[in-house]
């Protein structure tokens, strides 16, 4: 009995790592640029396709392709901020929401046009392997994804708290006007924020490839969970998003196990709404 629970928790934790990568990106963008990026899932998809083609054409392992997807998506992030998002920044948040939504629609359908709806899978030597410990099993690919995700999250935290640029980003997040008075260039900071957030999404894509298939709609599947985690952990709070993602992964897994195979999302949404009822700004407290 405890075996089942423990296994469910492990399953949830591991997939939670991926949710974390996606949600941290969303929360970072919100914290710094103050917009909600509905297209985050599509950038994960782009990361997956890049990994797929590198693996397919050149035989590069998806984990190694991290060194390509992350920089590539960083650049894309900067471009998106500079040419698109910058133009709709302002007091009215409606254009912002719809811009990222339209962007999501665009990327999804471009992918459909260019790559067709076919599922693209990559088989690595460790794709279907798992460690068996004490009657529990831990899939190798997912474990690696989890470890790398945690490492990247940690690296981000260090960046935000020790480097000048990181501190500048946090300053801009806390109070844009004062930050400007201090000589921080908001556009530059925003570009970096977008770049990092999208790089994380790209990383999630690469990490997913060994055990998940790439197809145009794949982003939509992950972005929903990511959003729930972002709100629960308080918008803008990176650590909040991380912890909430892991918790949501576990909640989903336990929900499937004990409420019903079709109830994972229901449990997660239930928790979200409960949280909002009692703590309207999420559990994370002020953005850090």
């Amino acid at each position, binding site marked *: 009995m405890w075996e089942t629970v423990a296994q469910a928790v492990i399953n949830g934790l591991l*997939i939670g790592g*991926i949710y974390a990568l996606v949600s941290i990106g969303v929360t970072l963008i919100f914290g710094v640029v103050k917009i909600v990026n509905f297209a985050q899932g599509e950038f994960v998809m782009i990361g997956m396709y890049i990994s797929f083609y590198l693996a397919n054409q050149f035989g590069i392992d998806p984990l190694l392709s991290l060194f390509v997807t992350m920089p590539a998506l960083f650049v894309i992030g900067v471009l998106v901020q500079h040419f698109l998002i910058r133009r709709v920044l302002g007091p009215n948040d409606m254009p912002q929401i719809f811009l990222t939504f339209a962007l999501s629609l665009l990327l999804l359908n471009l992918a459909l046009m260019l790559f*067709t709806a076919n599922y693209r899978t990559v088989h690595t030597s460790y794709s279907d392997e798992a460690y068996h410990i004490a009657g529990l099993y831990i899939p190798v690919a997912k474990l690696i994804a989890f470890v790398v995700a945690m490492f990247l999250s940690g690296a981000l935290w260090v960046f935000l708290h020790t480097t000048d640029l990181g501190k500048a980003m946090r300053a801009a997040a806390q109070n844009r006007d004062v930050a400007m008075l201090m000589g921080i260039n908001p556009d530059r900071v925003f570009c970096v924020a977008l770049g990092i957030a999208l790089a994380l999404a790209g990383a999630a894509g690469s990490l997913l490839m060994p055990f998940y298939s790439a197809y145009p709609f794949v982003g939509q599947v992950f972005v929903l969970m990511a959003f729930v985690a972002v709100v629960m952990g308080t918008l803008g709070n990176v650590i909040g998003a991380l912890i909430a993602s892991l918790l949501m992964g576990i909640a989903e897994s336990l929900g*499937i196990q004990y409420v019903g*195979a079709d109830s994972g999302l229901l449990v997660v949404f239930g928790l979200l709404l409960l949280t909002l009822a009692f703590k309207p700004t999420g559990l994370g407290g002020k953005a850090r």
Partner: protein
Amino acid sequence: MKKHRQKSIKNPTEPDKTLSKRQDRRQFLIKTGGILAAGAFGAVPLRGWAADPVNIGGLYPSTGSMAQIGVGCVAAAKLGVDMVNAAGGIKSLGGAKLNLIISDVQSDTTVTRTETDRLITGNKLSAIHGCYASALTMIASEVAERAKMPLITGSSSDQLNKGRHYTFTPFARASQFAQAQLQMAKLVSDKPKVAVIYENTAFGTSTSNGLKELAPGEGVEIVMFEPYSAGFTDASPLINKVKASGANALFSLSYLNDLILIVRTVKQVGLNIAINGGSGGFVMPDFYKNVGKIAEGLQGVAHWNHDINDDAQKVNVEFKKRTGDFAFEYAGGLVAQTFMLADALERAASADPQKVRDALSTLDVSSGYAAMAPGGKVKFGPDGKNIYGRPVGVQWQNGDLASIFPKEDARKPLMKM
């Protein structure tokens, strides 16, 4: 207005950019064009004008979550029409050619509803076929019923035969699939303990209901019975439950996407369990392409397979030339359906949908492409069911699907795991 409408829906004689093997296609088109030309000369004797083409509508999910399969279905539909036309078209209508008009239902129920309507009201059709997924076909058949347009389909839901006069299902029903699956479980184990997981729309629900009803009669114990919502991020929680149930066989009634995850996860978990994938995504070439060797030895059920008879083999060869993959269950069935429509048109000697419907209801064939089904005979009962319809059990052997059950349909021996 008319020009507008015809442009809005795909015309199959335009060069198709989405399918692969352009070179082979060009050659095949030239060949067919030659045959058609020759046929036209023979089939249009002294009249001096070509008979009006007969329009057949096809509704398939070319985009959305079932797009891979939908694209294959469209290719099969075109193949069927090309074959009928190459054989001279509808002779009782002066050699009229079949004209296929395809509409994309985007794997979405609402779109199916509106597209079926648009297809019927925007064109002069004689019959329609579609939509692969039972959930989508259910809606199309409702629209067809109200529009008094005959619909022929390979979708398996038993609901499609209830209270309808315009829907015809020449192939095995979900309840028959269920029975076959149960019997096949006994091939691998004497006391099968089965975990059933099924996608919660029409296809999964219909088949699983059949399983629940028939299991006790077949001596099979069901130890887990759970619906799930298609499109999950992780199959581990589900497989975890399967493991906890103590089952020694897994029936997964799923479409392609989820099936890939489920099968791979079972391998990861190291769960030693026989998987019967039902039909759906299991009997598609893409399944093997995505899971690889893990698929070897896995069993499933289908309403058509490319080794059931020589005609099927011929269709398989042609389909492979056009798409690069072997002809999957629904595709082969589609070609047969096209010939059934041609047969009905021939006997009705009219393109009027009502007359075509009546001709379909009296269909009775046992040879030729129209009878290309397990059992080799097609005759519709009053509820639109084929009274001779039955499924065939299949197994993945060396990257190909071989029919292995029941004995009279087995083309290859059962591969022991």
